[in-house]
């Protein structure tokens, strides 16, 4: 029976790859829009907080180096999240575009997995673009090859957390409530994720430290700080990675459940 089963699996993977190719094709054709979407926000944050405030003397010299890993974390998480959440709300809600893919000869889970993989790819591209932009704006960026494995782990887990959030939001949020996504989800996530300040320094603001500890993005920021600027006090990397792994499992399993609920009546 190996023959027919192998053939069946080949068909399913071919469908998976075709759907991924469709997403890449559309992104490629809309490249300027994609770049604007992923670059603009971190670019401005980097410029204002890293450059302008520093030049005016409101922040200390090393603040930009502390901020940079945080902005990488922010970009990784938010890009993955946006890539999933908004199209999903639209496709399930009103364009119904996703139906043609749901009817392709592959398990429903593959359609969700493709969305996640695509979100990861976009997230990586967006984060990597930040490196030259950082050099350009700040003159230099913190970089340690010895921190590279942790850097990669932090980015991958960060993108996965973002994708998990995106899947959850994209299948949970009703289309008519899509603007609530911005005000009630994105903004709080953006500012409680420790991308603009190291978590241990929040000692003096105990309640906020507790709040930020509940945001998985905090652990992405902290692990990237641990990788690039270890002299800044940060949460132990193993704690970060462990918390992220748990958060990913929870977000993904709830998100996939939501996806099934929307995909099959």
């Amino acid at each position, binding site marked *: 029976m190996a023959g027919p089963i192998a053939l069946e699996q080949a068909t399913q993977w071919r469908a998976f790859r075709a759907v991924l*190719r469709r997403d890449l094709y*559309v992104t490629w*054709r809309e490249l300027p829009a994609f770049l604007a979407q992923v670059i603009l926000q971190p670019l401005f944050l980097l410029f204002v907080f890293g450059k302008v405030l520093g030049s005016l003397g409101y922040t200390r010299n090393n603040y930009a180096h502390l901020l940079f890993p945080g902005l990488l974390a922010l970009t990784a998480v938010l890009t993955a999240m946006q890539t999933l959440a908004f199209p999903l709300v639209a496709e399930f809600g009103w364009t119904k*575009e996703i139906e043609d893919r749901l*009817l*392709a000869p592959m398990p429903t889970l593959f359609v969700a997995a493709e969305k996640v993989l695509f979100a990861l790819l976009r997230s990586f591209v967006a984060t990597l673009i930040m490196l030259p932009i950082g050099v350009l704006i700040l003159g230099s960026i913190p970089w340690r090859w010895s921190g590279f494995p942790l850097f990669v782990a932090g980015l991958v887990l960060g993108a996965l957390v973002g994708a998990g959030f995106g899947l959850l939001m994209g299948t949970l949020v009703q289309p008519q409530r899509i603007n609530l996504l911005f005000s009630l989800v994105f903004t709080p996530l953006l500012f409680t994720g420790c991308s603009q300040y190291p978590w241990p320094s929040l000692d003096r603001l105990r309640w906020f430290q507790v709040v930020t500890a509940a945001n998985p993005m905090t652990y992405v920021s902290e692990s990237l700080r641990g990788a690039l600027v270890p002299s800044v006090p940060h949460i132990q990397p193993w704690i970060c990675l462990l918390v992220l792994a748990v958060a990913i499992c929870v977000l993904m399993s709830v998100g996939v459940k939501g996806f099934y609920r929307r995909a099959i*009546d």
Partner: protein
Amino acid sequence: MPKVHPRPYDFEVLPRNDAGHAVEVVDLVKRYPKAPVNAVDGVSFGVAAGEVFGLLGPNGAGKTTTVGMLTTRVRPTGGRALVGGIDVMRDPVRARRQVAVVPQRSNLDRSLSIRDNLVFHAAYHGVPARERERRAAELLDQFGLLDRAGDKPDFFSGGQGQRVMIARALMHAPQVLFLDEPTTGLDPAARLFVWDRLRELRDSEVTLILTTHDMDEAAFLADRVAIMDHGRLLALDTPAALIGGLEGEGTLELAADGSADGAVVDALAALTGVERVETVHLQAENGAEAPPPAAQPLRVRLYLTGDAALHVAPAAAVLADHGLALQDVKLGTPTLEDVFIHLTGRTLR
């Protein structure tokens, strides 16, 4: 292929030619979460390979839900459905290879051009690259879409979108093609175009299952028609047999200027040549309550032996005897609409 034994109906639900069934449905049930009643309530039928099968029913009858279950988009609550011999519940992935759907509402990919919509659909289904280009060119031509092949579907009219979706559905050469109300909302020319394409498909291998609430469409296109209402099948046969099942050769529909009691109906039924009289009631529509039947102006349909025109004068006389004036008369031979009225006591729309 497992043999299916539908539960007994008082009509034949399986195709008479036993060339092999493209679709077999047994006691299919769907209840949506939190719904008080079943949207599809124990439906059984079989469709022969190459047949054109029509599901005729009013809004909310359960047509889309039935199509959804057969195409793996809706999970059945009970019963069984085989498409191309494959159980849609047990093996949805393989079932998807057999089918294509033209949905009731457009679900074209708005980020892709028309041509890319076709080409990527074929790619999802594993059609090799060169073959999908060839088929896309052929189908775009056949459906009169060549000059718009590079456009995005955003500004397409309903009729153009419908053409694109039928073309897209054919890209992976499905065994069974489901069309959910393929001509609803189209103007007469666009409808004729779609009908022509579907008539062409009849002559090919593909099995067509189409839903509609248009009796003309069902009668014109379908080999057999199932009449569905409230999630149940009320009848299933060839259009000719369904119509032939109504006694009489003609119908006469009369509308009077006031309401009336059973005495008028009895008097009409007593006329010579009148086989049967049916009272037609208005339906509540769009939330507006219809007046109670007793308060509605009289509207009856007479099933006749012989020429309908000869019965107008006697019928008008009966109405006059009861103080009513004739307001509207329609003569005709029975249609599927009459079959529907006969089965449910109300009009299709």
